[in-house]
């Protein structure tokens, strides 16, 4: 196996909300707690979990949009954890992001051409003509017409906007793209188009993806490997097929079981998880899942399980894996 393109070691990140003397006091929201993972060139790593589990934070921290409180990020062999924004700038061309809500991530006051050209100009791609040619090439790549370049984002449909977001992300030929819920705001029939497009681009441009989603089915189809997150920690990571078909962590199992299957013939009794995830401002001690886990025992309440190898290419953080 080749060297990982991205390594995260023991990342932790805590957000502070409210003012110390303000109403409600100060809250420390632990969004990431000791998260480690490796991403290999050319693969798609899915990152899945319920809202508030820290998957978006992880995505943004990996790109140094947030500075981690602790831990290390190594991108293409360079430690970027403490790198200044200025020093990081050349590297940024190599790592890009696609956002969930394309209407929020595209400045509504700028034309599409201007938006896509922005990274090219910033990284001194070349003369005006060269940029123009690249813009047209990019539009073609993502399936849009060059005449769309002079329009404003709000003149496009959701799917088209996401294509624009992709065009901007691949403008500089990056090696890594972190896609944060790229399809969850889209309708099913459009979702498929975007997922397909991303797959095509991956093939053509030799991209590595971290694909963040809450929809297990999308991950299942889009990612070769998947990491399941719960309350700021990775509970299970491994090949998608292995994890989805034979989940080892009780949370993964419950999550999969909860997904309604679009097959009326397969109506079945599901194991329905009770309760809702605790607040990340006040996570439970020990195994974070123990409050809802059907198999929880005394040990789970006190001792935090580490991510340990479990079978081939799989790691699980559970004292009593399935």
């Amino acid at each position, binding site marked *: 196996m080749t060297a990982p393109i991205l390594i995260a070691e023991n990342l932790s990140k805590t957000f502070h909300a*409210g003012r110390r*003397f*303000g*109403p*409600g*006091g100060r809250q420390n929201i632990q969004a990431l707690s000791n998260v480690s993972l490796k991403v290999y060139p050319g693969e798609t790593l899915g990152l899945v979990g319920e809202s508030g589990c820290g998957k978006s934070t992880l995505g943004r921290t990996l790109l140094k949009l947030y500075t981690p409180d602790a831990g290390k990020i190594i991108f293409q062999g360079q430690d970027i954890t403490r790198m200044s924004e200025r020093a990081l700038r050349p590297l940024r061309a190599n790592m890009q992001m696609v956002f969930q809500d394309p209407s929020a991530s595209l400045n509504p006051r700028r034309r599409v051409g201007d938006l896509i050209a922005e990274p090219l100009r910033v990284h001194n791609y070349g003369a005006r003509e060269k940029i123009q040619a690249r813009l047209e090439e990019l539009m073609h790549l993502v399936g849009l017409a060059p005449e769309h370049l002079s329009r404003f984002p709000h003149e496009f449909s959701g799917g088209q906007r996401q294509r624009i977001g992709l065009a901007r992300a691949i403008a500089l030929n990056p090696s890594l793209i972190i896609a944060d819920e790229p399809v969850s705001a889209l309708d099913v029939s459009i979702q498929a188009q975007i997922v397909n497009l991303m797959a095509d681009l991956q093939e053509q441009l030799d991209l590595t993806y971290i694909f963040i989603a809450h929809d297990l089915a999308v991950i299942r189809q889009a990612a070769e490997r998947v990491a399941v997150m719960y309350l700021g920690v990775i509970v299970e990571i491994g090949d998608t097929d292995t994890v989805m078909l034979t989940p080892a962590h009780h949370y993964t199992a419950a999550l999969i079981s909860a997904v309604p299957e679009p097959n009326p013939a397969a109506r079945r009794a599901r194991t329905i998880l009770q309760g809702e995830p605790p*607040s990340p401002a006040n996570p439970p001690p020990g195994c974070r899942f123990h409050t809802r886990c059907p198999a929880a025992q005394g040990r789970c309440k006190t001792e935090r399980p580490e991510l340990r190898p479990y079978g081939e290419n799989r790691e699980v953080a559970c004292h009593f894996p399935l």
Partner: protein
Amino acid sequence: MIFLVLLRRLAEMVFVLFSISVLVFLIFFATPGADPAARIAGRGASPATLAAVRHAFGLDQPLPVQYGLMMKHLFITQDLTSFVNPGQLVIPAVLQAVPVTLSLVFGAAVIWLIFAVAIGVTAAALRGSVIDRSLMFLAMAGVSMPVFWLGEVANLITQARFHNTVLFSWVPALGYVPLTQNPLLWFKSLVIPWTVLAVTYIGLYSRVLRANLVEALTEDYIRTARAKGLSERQVIFRHALRMSLITLVSMFGLDFGALVGGGALLIEVVCALPGVGMLTYQALQNLDLPFIMATVMYGAIFIVAANTVVDMLYLLIDPRARGAR
């Protein structure tokens, strides 16, 4: 928790007051024609007399010392006296003016709240209609009138032009009559100032309320309320209005604070009401530093206090502000 919040507010207030007092002090000493010694001494006083006065009032001390002394007299011994009316204690004068301003602002506030809610709700309920548009135009006109001018015109009408008609013959001479002295006369003498002061705010509040109501009426919970089977009136009064009032209450707190803190200056001057605004106005006219200092401090305290009260009130009336979960 509340205690800590208050403590922080208090610290903020002290800082703000300190800065403002220094600012006022410096502005005063930068103003020509303001040498308090010259005015205390009187016209034609000889340089020797001037020097004696300057010494007697401590005006020959360095500025920081003078500042310190003034603050001591204002806050600690509370016996600061005027430069222009020697011997006049500043704090009792301000305290005496407060009831006048309170009478003015309180009465006006009652008027403006009643009218603003009535107009705002009517306009929102009839949104898009001719009535809505006319009401909103009137409200805009109300906001757009210079308040002192309105006061002048009101005086012209009620005191002179139409004073002898049935409509306004009851209007007493300008000035203030304490409530304790003659409640009826108190009321009569304040009706016109109340109205004049209220006009702007009726305009402002009714427009804000209408906008809030119209926006609130598009919210999901309004749909829920309708889906419950509530009538349109119940929907507006129980659900939309309740939410819109939260904004209005915070606006009201700040405006009330600013007005009581001296913001009603123009109307007090025009209607000859000896309130805090008038006191401030006279102090500035006289360049009477101790009075300026006291009224500005008072005003600032009121504004900061109003801010705090509004924050606290928010906790009370908007459960969302009490912190989630």
